């Protein structure tokens, strides 16, 4: 991070207009304490970052006279995260900016939608159950083998005078 990039900061966050950006004039908000991904960010800090990001959408309209804005969070490497810290990007948009942020929607079957709702609803419960299963399996595997125990006993008896 270049100090020249900073446009405003406080005890919790730093707001940058970086020279390396998606579009000229893009704003990036980063927390002063480093968190790698969104899931690690303290709740109150995340709330502040979202509220500031939203206000900055209005600031971009006012300052740069852009025609639209995007809020983009690239959470994780496969989402395109390049900074070693969670951040929120606010992107000014213009009709001739040539930027394509989009996707092609694929039709989802009713069955797959139903299955995915269940999956999302139950993932926490399923994760706990899987962890418990794994724990039980590890406990069983750490117990001595019955044959070994017998053999041990037999061996012990053989040692008796």
């Amino acid at each position: 991070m270049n100090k020249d990039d900073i446009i405003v900061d406080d005890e919790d966050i730093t707001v940058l207009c970086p020279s390396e950006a998606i579009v000229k004039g893009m704003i990036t908000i980063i927390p002063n304490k480093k968190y790698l991904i969104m899931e690690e960010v303290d709740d109150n800090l995340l709330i502040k970052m979202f509220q500031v990001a939203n206000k900055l959408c209005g600031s971009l309209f006012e300052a740069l006279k852009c025609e639209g804005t995007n809020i983009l969070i690239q959470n994780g490497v496969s989402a395109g995260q390049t900074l070693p810290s969670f951040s929120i990007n606010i992107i000014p948009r213009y009709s001739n900016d040539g930027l394509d942020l989009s996707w092609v929607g694929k039709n989802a079957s009713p069955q797959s939608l139903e299955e995915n709702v269940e999956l999302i609803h139950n993932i926490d419960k399923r994760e706990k159950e899987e962890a418990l299963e794994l724990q039980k399996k590890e406990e069983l595997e750490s117990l001595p083998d019955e044959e070994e125990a017998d053999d041990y006993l037999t061996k012990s008896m053989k040692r008796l005078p």
Partner: protein
Amino acid sequence: MADDNKKLLEEQKKNCPFCKIVSGETKSKKVYEDQHLFCVLDIKPGNEGHILIIPKKHVPVSPLLEDEVLANASLVIKNLSNKLLKAFKVQGTSLFLANGGVAGQMMPHSVFHLIPRSKGDSVNLNPVFKKFDVSEEREKLKKVLGQ
């Protein structure tokens, strides 16, 4: 808000597909709901598990959302993102919001998109970063922000 704008907003609401989802008029696959938000699976997802976080209040652009709604949305998005990472075994999630048609907004109701992401998938939300001279933009922003 001026009366004309209020009337326009009311007309928008009557025909808004997202308001119809929130009211239940249009069926949807709900993953979460609270006083401010209605979250559903997108029926035409960019990737499997794509969630729409819909503010119940109809606003055409996000700067019109109250801070309380943003606060709620931030924590719901964090929670749902965590579930998506685990449920779909992906290494990232994208959060995307568009204000204005030039930004990719399709419907006049502000909505967050939360999309599970895998390396090399076909969702085009990994834009290239370039170098710019932004000294002028920085000054304009500092002025607006009172710096």
